[in-house]
């Protein structure tokens, strides 16, 4: 930052997950921004963005909920920082659709009883780190480089897709996570499943689906030699972390037929010999760790797949 330039400051939309199952994402985001001396002010009384279920069955409701949140965010200064990939995707999609479709915009404005705020810039945390704070400065700010940590950066579905909407990075071959990891001193591994779907919100209704898809992701990361996976979405985190043990039980033992009965033989992708635990980190957890934030204040206690042995092994604790 050049001298005299204003301190970076953002309004903040955490979203439901970050107040519950993804609480460590929220905690670490706040800790990271504090460490980087970047302002972060939560939008008061925000609502759920509707996530996938809302647009799944009722696009108008989904657009209206997001438009409502965008107009609530108008009241807080600074671009809107979003950590959850799903919320980010919904908010960006809403802005995109309503800018392009006048009919929908008018309907939404009736629904929220006010104008839709379409010009508030919505920024994902990754974008803020890599572009606004800047990779060079991020690298400078590192106090404890994540030396020797092999990380599989996992983008999931919603961060970059569909083309032209999130405007975060190339929708098929993004590099923003790798760039951030390199700046933090970690080693991003090249792997094949960084943009495959984890099963997302089927975690509630059809957990079997999640097990199959998430297994493929974990397996691919292990083959690539990753120590851990980095995510930017609480849903992905939930599926890969919380259900990791379950996945191992379902796919690890060759004679497991528990889920095979339900879904047929497709479930058995063959048992992988490598069954290492893969801790799942949020991007903000890794970044904050590199900035020297004490690990106690990064919410590691909330994580199911314990990351501490790995961090100890790499002398990062």
């Amino acid at each position, binding site marked *: 930052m050049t001298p005299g330039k204003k301190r970076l400051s953002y309004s903040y939309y955490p979203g439901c997950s970050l107040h519950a199952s993804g609480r460590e994402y929220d905690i670490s985001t706040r800790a990271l921004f504090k460490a980087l001396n970047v302002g972060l002010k939560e939008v008061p009384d925000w609502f759920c963005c509707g996530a996938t279920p809302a647009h799944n069955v009722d696009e108008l409701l989904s657009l209206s909920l997001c438009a*409502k949140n965008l107009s609530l965010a108008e009241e807080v200064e600074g671009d809107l920082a979003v950590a959850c990939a799903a919320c980010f995707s919904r908010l960006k999609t809403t802005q995109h659709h309503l800018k392009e479709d006048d009919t929908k915009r008018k309907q939404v404005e009736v629904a929220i009883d006010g104008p839709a705020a379409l010009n508030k810039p919505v920024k994902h945390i990754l974008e803020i780190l890599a572009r606004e704070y800047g990779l060079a400065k991020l690298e400078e700010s590192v106090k404890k480089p994540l030396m020797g940590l092999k990380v599989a950066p996992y983008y999931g579905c919603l961060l970059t897709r569909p083309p032209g909407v999130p405007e975060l990075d190339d929708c098929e071959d993004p590099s923003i996570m790798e760039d951030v990891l390199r700046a933090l001193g970690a080693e991003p591994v090249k792997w094949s499943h960084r943009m495959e779907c984890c099963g997302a919100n089927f975690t509630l209704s059809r957990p079997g689906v999640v097990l199959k898809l998430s297994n493929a992701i974990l397996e691919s990361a292990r083959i690539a030699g990753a120590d851990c996976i980095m995510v930017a979405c609480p849903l992905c985190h939930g599926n890969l972390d919380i259900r990791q043990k379950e996945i191992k039980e379902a796919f690890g033992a060759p004679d497991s037929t528990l889920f095979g009965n339900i879904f047929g033989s497709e479930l058995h992708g063959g048992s992988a010999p490598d069954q290492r635990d893969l801790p799942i980190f949020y991007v903000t957890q890794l970044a904050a760790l590199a900035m020297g934030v004490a690990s106690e204040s990064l919410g590691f206690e909330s994580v199911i797949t314990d990351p501490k042995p790995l961090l100890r092994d790499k002398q990062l604790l």
Partner: protein
Amino acid sequence: MKNKLMHLSNETMNIGFVKKVEALSGSSVRRCFQCGKCSAGCPMSTFMEHPPNRVVRLLQLGQGQRILAGRSIWYCASCETCTTRCPNKVDLAAIMDALRKLSWDADGPSKESYVQLANRLFIENIRTYGRQYELRLGAAFNMKSGQFLKDLMLGPKLISKGKLKMFHSKNKNIAEIEGIFKRIEEMRKKGEAL
């Protein structure tokens, strides 16, 4: 249903339904030339009785009822892979949204009740609390779906990890949420919105 003879005529092809799908999704159905790229990349394709390209094909033939009768649309994960890679700018993810909406409106002849139930509870939660209340969502899902023991071991663990909250406070401005729901319902009643 799958192998039932398909009679094609002006009467049996429900083009009105297709037009509704096109209006809701903002995407052309006829543009699809059935290359199958959507099905090739769909992570959920193996769970569907009609893979994505066939969903569009059935729409082209005016056979919306065949789609709604199946569970394909409820197994779409909204990952947008199809939309991203379609060579022809068919927004299949949006078409899936539209189909689910129409199925939902018709109170779902679909067999896939679990996903519908989860969606319904999720949206109910928003209306009641303003935000998600994950414990209630999970508990209610298990109760209503009759899977009392589903993820039984996971719940307490998550509570102990602080990931599930026992209690949830409502938004202060919860009345505004109700207003949004009400106004949308009114618009639909008056025919001002689909």
